């Protein structure tokens, strides 16, 4: 898995609450059997006009000033809906390695870590402030320092963020989760032989 440590990049704002995974990547793109190549499908219904090709000038992410953005600024309950991991894949393929939002849907949040992406949770008022700053300054960049668990603003000011230590370790080391679990293979076997395969309780 990709290591995540420091990231400095352009921030792009997404002005919507409850952004569901059907918006992040619509179902017609879930028919592929690959993990990559989803960049052009990200936010498809918002990003393109009805012909499916012409960029929608009203969709903020399409503005030239956000080209090359690697940090997505979002609102409450980001990633709700289906469990499709195509959502983080599409964000990652497009270039977003970090998301900042007040809250996330559960499955989406987990899926990010399994793809070496960092979803940061910050209080709503701080996120709103970032929205204002991003829009006020073209080329606005943030620096994410996972090791120190801080976001550094252009003026040098920093914002600390919380993260479960285990998630932090995994990203910093790029650990493959299956490999980590298989360190405890003997315990899994012992559990299985101790209980048999039928559901317990009988």
């Amino acid at each position, binding site marked *: 898995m990709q290591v995540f440590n420091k990231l400095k990049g352009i921030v792009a704002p997404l002005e*919507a*609450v*409850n952004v*569901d995974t*059907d*918006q992040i990547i*619509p*179902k*017609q793109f*879930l*028919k*592929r*059997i*690959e*993990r990559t190549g989803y960049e052009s499908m990200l936010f498809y*219904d918002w990003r393109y006009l*009805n012909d499916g090709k012409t960029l929608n000038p009203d969709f903020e992410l399409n503005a030239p000033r956000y080209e090359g953005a690697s940090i997505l600024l979002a*609102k*409450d*309950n980001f990633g*709700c*809906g*289906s*469990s*499709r*991991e195509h959502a*983080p894949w599409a964000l990652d393929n497009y270039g977003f390695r970090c998301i900042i939002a007040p*809250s996330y*849907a*559960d*499955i989406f949040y*987990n*899926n990010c870590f*399994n*793809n070496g992406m960092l979803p940061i949770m910050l209080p709503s008022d701080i996120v709103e402030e970032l929205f204002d700053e991003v829009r006020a300054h073209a080329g606005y960049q943030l620096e994410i320092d996972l090791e120190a668990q801080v976001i550094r603003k252009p003026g040098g000011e920093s914002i600390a963020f919380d993260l*479960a*230590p*285990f998630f932090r370790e995994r990203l910093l080391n790029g650990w*493959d*989760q*299956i490999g980590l*679990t*298989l360190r*405890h*293979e003997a*315990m*899994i076997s012992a*559990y*299985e032989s101790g*209980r048999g*395969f*039928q*559901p*317990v*309780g*009988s």
Partner: protein
Amino acid sequence: MAKNIYEKIWEAHVVHEPAGEDAILYIDRHYVHEVTSPQAFEGLRLTGRKVRRPELTFATMDHNIPTTDRSVPIRDPLSKQQVETLKQNCAEAGVECFDMHDRRNGIVHVIGPELGLTLPGMTIVCGDSHTSTHGALGALAHGIGTSEVEHVLATQTLLQKKSKTMEVRVNGALPVGLTAKDIILAIIGKIGTAGGTGYVIEFTGEAIRALSMEGRMTVCNMTIEGGARAGLISPDEKTFEYLKGRAYLPKDKSWDALVAGWKAWASEPGCTYDTLVELNAADIEPQVTWGTSPGMVTGISGKTPVVSELQGVEKLAAASALKYMDLGEGMPLSEVTINKMFLGSCTNGRLEDLRAAAKVAKGHKVHPSIQQALVVPGSHEVKQQAEAEGIDAIFREAGFEWREAGCSMCLAMNDDFLLPGDRCASTSNRNFEGRQGKGGRTHLVSPAMAVAAAITGHFTDIRTWNFND
């Protein structure tokens, strides 16, 4: 200390809890479908890993398959490839796969309980958010991403943090004409689409106990729409009665021993939860969603919101939802007209749903303004049983289309989808923008309410329906 069902299942399945890490939870049952699994099997191949317990894993094709004549090959080459990839992956790994020609085929969350693969006390996962459905039988069941699918295939375990618990208690008796769908929509309307985030919900109370198993599945199915990780209902006599005679029940135990084992999972009197939410069933009206999130819902006598009366995030969300839905502010839901109807999905595609809907349809005709009214059974088994009862004939006579089983227009990955501007009464679980087709508008309702809307052309209070018995 008295324990609730979640605590019991959790404790019985923790393999190991490494210090400072998530717990390794053993998984009893893993369901797989064609859309979220190919990259997981590919991952195993790339790392030279094997499926650890193929016999605990079952696969079905449901999302991508056509609901029209199955003898015709799938036209879309990508859908076809995905379906064939699943078949091949399962054959290689030794996983049983119910392909689209198998009589056991159907939507994964319909066939799991139907085949007796979902049992009380189990831990169940699937790369699908509506895995919460299986909680209706007293199993701890949740949706996972594709990386986690790979993890479960390789290790038969999942990493989990213990959730907080929420009791959602629905008191009293449900008024006549109301269904499980109305209960769960009312609950989501109350707690909000993120109200359950971080929680596992147990549904309790007389109204829940009074529901059939199929109704309980409808409730648990949409738990995820409230943001919760899983929804559970403690098993009782109805659960055991439902399971009796199901195809995949363990054959090596007597019925009495099985029931005794299952009973032991139920929450104990006096157990506690982190949070309690209470509703009175008597206060619930037939529900209709007006917006683009399942929490944007009101009773049939209600109106769309007036944006200026809302604040903050809600205001922003309501304004954009009404715009997408092309609805005015303060508009009575009973005045909203539709041109399409979809009856089916893992929420409401079971036999009882079709029966209830057929009662409404009987002796009526689909309204001339309706361009398509689809009835799609949740599984092949449901379809056959419904046909044996003559339900298909009632729908056909009334002008509905009777289809083969599958996910169909719930997510519109196959040929069943809305066109831009269509407005659909749907018994599915998500009214997100474009969910049923780009530019399509979805109103979530119960099966009876969907059929009533298809017959009158607009949303109609089912409590005043003229039944032709």
